[in-house]
């Protein structure tokens, strides 16, 4: 329609102030949708990271801490669990399955996790998903390794690539287990969980590379990879273990039993309830962030109102000319509303584009340091409603200058003397 053309060209004529307004709306949209996306996806990730595991057992610490370091690989274990205790508990008749976890080493920034082949059998994420191999098979030899999707992707690893593990989480040149390289035998499919960023090896492998280490340093007595293979390689301790029960009815009594384990202080947590309480703590923070973002969006819209109001005087003549060539007085209101819609929609599009660009850039960083896996998704219904409400608000706000200009143009008529 011609009025839209006029509104567009008129807006282009004032593009500096309007594009600044558009930019501020775009930024507030980035903030609002960004916070919303992160909070939703973070929640999703957290909830989906582990499922169908009844208990996680580790050294005594806060339940959240145990969950964070054992499953999310955030932070470090406070203490270990003796392998003897693990075997004792795993052998209890209530326990259907158990999977040991041994953490502490890394490979080029990715965590290394020692476990056994039961991990591939029992670990579940996103409700019922088990781990699937994109290529290769699970580890069978001491020096075999399976890598997560992101590890293979970002380091460009194929099957049979030789990798060297690092002692500790921070890689230094002097802490490499370079005498005992591992061979990649399997690459996992993407799971959107910390598994994607993990190198999986057998417990024996973890044992082998540490067999000639003492107190975090390589001892003078070197043992070759071949020799290590011949040794017992029974681990003395592990970081934590996951277990499933035969019957849910026994879950609480088993938990109590583990918590009162006579040989060493242990703690068993239920991942579901711990996830929920973790999310509750973060939920408060999330609400504050959302409130701040809503306020920022509101500020952006007020900026739009200011930009429209400040142009009222300079546009007086424009309105008179339009009236003289046949525009009705209500067309003047429509012009202001159209302008607001143009600026806000432009801000939305720009903001959404920025949001996606930022998500693409932030993805590896967030995954790396916070264990949050953002996937680029379409806007969900709630977010579209947020945008529509903002648009509606902008239209309502634009009625203020629109009505002022309308009243003025009725008063001025065609003959504005400026």
């Amino acid at each position: 329609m011609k009025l839209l053309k006029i509104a567009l060209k008129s807006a282009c004529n004032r593009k500096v102030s309007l594009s600044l307004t558009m930019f501020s709306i775009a930024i507030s949209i980035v903030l609002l949708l960004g916070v919303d996306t992160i909070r939703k996806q973070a929640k999703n990730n957290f909830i989906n990271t582990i499922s169908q595991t009844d208990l996680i057992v580790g050294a005594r610490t806060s339940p959240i801490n145990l969950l964070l370091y054992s499953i999310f690989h955030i932070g470090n274990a406070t203490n270990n669990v003796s392998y003897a205790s693990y075997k004792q508990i795993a052998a209890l008749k209530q326990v259907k399955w158990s999977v040991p976890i041994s953490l502490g080493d890394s490979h080029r920034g990715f965590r290394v996790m020692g476990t056994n082949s039961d991990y591939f059998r029992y670990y579940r994420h996103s409700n019922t998903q088990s781990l699937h191999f994109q290529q290769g098979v699970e580890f069978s030899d001491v020096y075999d390794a399976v890598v997560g999707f992101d590890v293979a992707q970002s380091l460009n690893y194929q099957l049979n690539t030789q990798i060297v593990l690092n002692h500790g989480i921070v890689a230094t040149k002097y802490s490499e287990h370079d005498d005992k390289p591992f061979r990649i035998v399997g690459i996992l499919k993407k799971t959107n969980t910390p598994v994607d960023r993990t190198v999986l090896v057998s417990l024996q492998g973890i044992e082998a590379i540490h067999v000639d280490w003492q107190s975090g340093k390589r001892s003078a007595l070197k043992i070759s990879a071949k020799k290590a293979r011949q040794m017992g390689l029974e681990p003395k301790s592990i970081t934590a273990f996951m277990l499933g029960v035969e019957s849910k009815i026994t879950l609480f009594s088993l938990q109590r039993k583990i918590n009162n384990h006579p040989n060493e202080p242990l703690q068993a947590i239920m991942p579901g309830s711990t996830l929920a309480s973790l999310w509750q703590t973060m939920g408060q923070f999330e609400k504050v962030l959302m409130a701040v973002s809503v306020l920022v969006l509101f500020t952006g819209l007020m900026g739009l109102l200011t930009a429209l109001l400040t142009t009222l005087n300079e546009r007086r003549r424009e309105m008179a000319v339009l009236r003289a060539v046949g525009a009705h007085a209500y067309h003047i209101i429509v012009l202001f509303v159209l302008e607001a819609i143009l600026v806000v929609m432009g801000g939305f599009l720009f903001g959404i584009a920025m949001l996606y660009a930022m998500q693409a850039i932030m993805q590896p960083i967030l995954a790396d340091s916070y264990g949050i896996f953002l996937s680029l998704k379409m806007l969900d219904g709630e977010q579209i409603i947020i945008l529509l409400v903002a648009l509606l608000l902008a239209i309502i706000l634009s009625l203020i200058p629109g009505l002022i200009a309308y009243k003025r143009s009725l008063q001025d008529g065609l003959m504005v003397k400026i």
Partner: protein
Amino acid sequence: MTAAVIQFSNVRFRYSEQGQDVLDITDLQVHQGEHLFIQGASGSGKTTLLNIMTGINQPYAGKIQVLGKALQNLSAIESDRFRVDNLGIIFQQFNLLPYLSLLENVQLPCWFSAKRRAQAGNSKQAAAELLQQLHIPKSMFDKPVNALSMGQQQRVAVARALIGKPEIIIADEPTSALDSDNRKRFLDLLFSQTDKQNSTLVFVSHDSQIAPYFSRTIDLSEINSAIDTEYNA
């Protein structure tokens, strides 16, 4: 004598916040095809007269017939439509929208009026023809408005008033920003173009020097009794 296209009878107007009439015209007739010059000093009610003649303001008493239509009975939207359908309006200055090209500026009435659009035929072509007849070089058609001289801008405004052949052209001091050479040339072009499409011209100005060019001259202070009483008081 030809028929009256505009007829005022006993028209009285005041702005609602004022206690006094600003316009009180017993009889004013504008005839078809004439070039009428309405001369008035500032404060004599020129602007009010034009606002009433174009249906922007409505009198509280009296009748105004424009092209046989009683303006005082029209709703705001009807009078807006009537205005764009039948009147071409030229301002003192700043007639053009700076963000539209010359051609678009000239076509504006056709965007809002189906009647003007139909009468113009191909509006873009009609606009280009009018601009050429008003001596605007073709090379300027796509230039921004502010690259034009004042005289050129006013001629573009004439083209816009003329497009779609409205019956009446109303000009509000269009020459006040022009020097005397340009003024004469502007008037010649304005006359020849309005005559060409058989439109009536109502030209309002304070400048009595240009009165001789017109077929008829009216002094507003003589027909507006509201002003006389104010002067006498």
